[in-house]
């Protein structure tokens, strides 16, 4: 499937309902098919991002997620199934995605983003969707996305609340602009319903689709915050920091960044 090829009959048949979206059309569909997206971690959030992108006809997914399926995954990690308990999450996720979309090309990496693989994984993708549950991993992807000039959809949840923004290096605030110091209060285990992480995943997938297809107005320089307890949604303008350790002048000159 080379760049710019017309849509096949199968692709037209599969995507005809979304080809009707104004501003998207055949050109948007071809852009999706020719794009690669890195989704880091396929949990309650990333699993839904990957599934929605697979459904929308993304060409290639680079997926990173370590470990085996455990019972406590199954309240939210919609790519994982009971049958796969005790087996690798990445294999379960890959099988599920290919069931939905056999045209999809997947680079499956059975480990989480870390210092050793971050540069390579980000280099493999046109757009990154950051769904990691640890700031350490999020900061690594942010650093590489800024270094390599790749857009990154930054999405996160806690309990019944969530945040989404889309980072364009050099234009919008990056993750280190938002959080210039390490967030010490963050804990690996967080309260979560799958319906909340899944909602964020759908919004993040939509941001990735918009960025790739040039559709609508992505959340550039805006942070969408929502609370499903009250169903209050608001988007606030966020600020770039000139002294940002990653995207500010110091970061760009190759100073140590984390």
């Amino acid at each position, binding site marked *: 499937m080379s760049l710019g090829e017309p849509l096949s009959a199968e692709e037209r048949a599969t995507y005809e309902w979304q080809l009707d979206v104004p501003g998207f059309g055949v050109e948007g569909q071809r852009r999706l098919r020719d794009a690669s997206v890195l989704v880091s971690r396929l949990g309650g959030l990333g699993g839904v991002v990957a599934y929605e992108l697979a459904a929308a006809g993304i060409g290639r997914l680079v997926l990173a997620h370590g470990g085996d399926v455990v019972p406590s995954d199954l309240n939210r990690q919609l790519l994982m199934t009971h049958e796969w308990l005790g087996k690798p999450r990445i294999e379960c996720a890959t099988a599920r995605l290919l069931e939905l979309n056999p045209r999809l090309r997947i680079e499956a990496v059975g480990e989480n983003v870390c210092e050793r693989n971050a540069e390579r994984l980000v280099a493999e993708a046109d757009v990154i969707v950051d769904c990691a549950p640890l700031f350490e991993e999020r900061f690594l992807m942010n650093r590489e996305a800024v270094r390599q000039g790749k857009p990154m959809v930054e999405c996160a*949840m806690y*309990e019944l609340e969530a945040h989404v923004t889309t980072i364009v290096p050099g234009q919008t605030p990056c993750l280190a602009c938002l959080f210039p110091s390490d*967030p010490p209060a963050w804990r690996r285990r967080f309260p979560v319903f799958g319906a909340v992480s899944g909602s964020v995943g759908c919004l993040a997938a939509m941001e990735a689709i918009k960025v790739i297809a040039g559709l609508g107005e992505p959340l550039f320089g805006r942070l969408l915050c929502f*609370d499903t307890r009250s169903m209050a949604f*608001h988007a*606030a303008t966020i600020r770039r920091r000139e002294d940002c350790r990653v995207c500010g002048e110091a970061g760009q000159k190759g100073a140590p960044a984390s």
Partner: protein
Amino acid sequence: MKVTVQFSAQLRAAAQEAVCTVDATEGSTVQDVIRGIAEEHGGEVRSLLLDEAGELSPSVLIFADGQQVLWEAPCTVAPDQTVIITTPIAGG
């Protein structure tokens, strides 16, 4: 003057309330209001808002009128303003 402050994420859990009303003096800043809340609540609320040196933690997000307020840029509060404070979240 009355200022409404909304808490979200871990801060809301720590404060055990989603919203509070603060009586702020004329000319005080958003930062003053938040420092006051940290001192008044103490405990976990204080530790989420202030660092070990007692300075406002730069990774706490503050919004007033739909705009982010940076800690280092004092922003005067207006009567009946709503300030939203949220702590960093990374759940996936």
